[in-house]
């Protein structure tokens, strides 16, 4: 009984510390008005002998405008603005809008990423969020629902030590199935042309 009480006490403290941690991250992210960065995505799977590397650009403006653009090996752009998401594929030299149900899934993903940029790491009920470290902060998102667990094992988000912007994201779909996204050339609070979130160009 004493052990149980002790456990509850400790567990309660951990939760409280975690809530404080997330609250701190939310407060710190208020400083972020816009973000732009290059990214490199490395997909590792058992079937691949070396990771499949993709590259692109990322743009974000408060509160939820996003542009997620791949330039290679395939050109593709996902836009999110005013809670509307669109996705474009590049085919035969032209941009073609994706009209499939996949856009719906993309909208959810983009809204989630926008949430991370706002410091809202613990707002999605589908994931349990844990914050680790102080200077080198890592947020671990673990799926709560069984259905989601079959798709994603966990997501690890690493924040840059000082600016508190997302530095890298690691998505583990299985032990040998990992997507690592590293951001570079990060520019915070630089002016971004608003059309970048509306037009595929």
């Amino acid at each position, binding site marked *: 009984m004493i052990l149980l009480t002790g456990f509850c006490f400790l567990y309660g403290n951990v939760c409280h510390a975690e809530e404080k941690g997330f609250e701190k991250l939310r407060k710190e992210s208020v400083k972020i008005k816009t973000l732009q960065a290059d990214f490199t995505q490395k997909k590792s799977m058992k079937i691949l002998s070396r990771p*499949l590397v993709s590259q692109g650009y990322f743009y974000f403006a408060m509160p939820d405008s996003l542009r997620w653009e791949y330039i290679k090996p395939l050109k593709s752009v996902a836009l999110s603005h005013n809670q509307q998401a669109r996705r474009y*594929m590049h085919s035969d030299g032209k941009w073609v809008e994706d009209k499939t149900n996949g856009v719906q899934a993309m909208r959810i993903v983009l809204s989630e990423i926008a949430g991370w940029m706002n410091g809202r790491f613990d707002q999605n009920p589908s994931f349990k969020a844990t914050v680790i470290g102080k200077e080198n902060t890592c947020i671990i998102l673990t799926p709560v629902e069984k259905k989601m667990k079959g798709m994603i094992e966990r997501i690890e988000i690493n924040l840059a030590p000082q600016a508190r912007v997302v530095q890298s994201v690691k998505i583990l779909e299985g032990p040998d199935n990992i997507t690592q996204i590293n951001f570079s050339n990060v520019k915070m609070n630089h002016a971004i042309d608003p059309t970048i979130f509306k037009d595929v160009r």
Partner: protein
Amino acid sequence: MRRHLLWIVIFFLSSCQTLPIINAPSSPRKEKSFVCPDPFLKRNYRLVHAIEARLDGRVQSQIIGITLALPDTRSVSCAIITVEGMSLFEAEANPHGINVKRALPPFDSKDFANNMMEDIKLIFLAPEGVLQNRGYLADGSKACRYRQENGGWIDVIENESGETQIKRYSSSEVLKRDVRFSGTHKQLYQRIGLQADAKFDYFLLMNLIEDQPIKKQAIKRN
């Protein structure tokens, strides 16, 4: 775009036909020197393609397809991932059967896995079965016809410009798949078109991202 539409029109026109007649080489000398078109892998390869799926000529989606093909053992493994890196489908097939490791909707039906693995084998592995006919089609293309165990047919064709095509017919002689290679002999798998006659007719356009020969030891490690 026009080129793809042309392929689709050609497919629909040809799908109304029965198996075309293959005329035997006209002389014993031609018969002796006749070599069947052979666009298939001779050694183990890993290929990564950007795949565009089209319905009614319109691009529906773009995905990345990874294929590991082992001609010696007639084994293939494949994975489909989104541009964003999400794995949608992973499976392997060998002469003993298919093992689906991961299949998210809409790739989670058994038919999808079977068709997918059969299509990969059709494109990359030499046909099984008996060589039934060899010679020339009416348009002068070189053709070899293989009878499959299930009663179906596979024609491997090379036209006079050197373009290679694989056609799979059902046992009732209905054209089910039409594969066209647009790459050169050196880079045959650079651009592959696959037109399918299925529940929903679709067209897949595969553009090579990277390819890599693989050693047997490397496969064992996998």
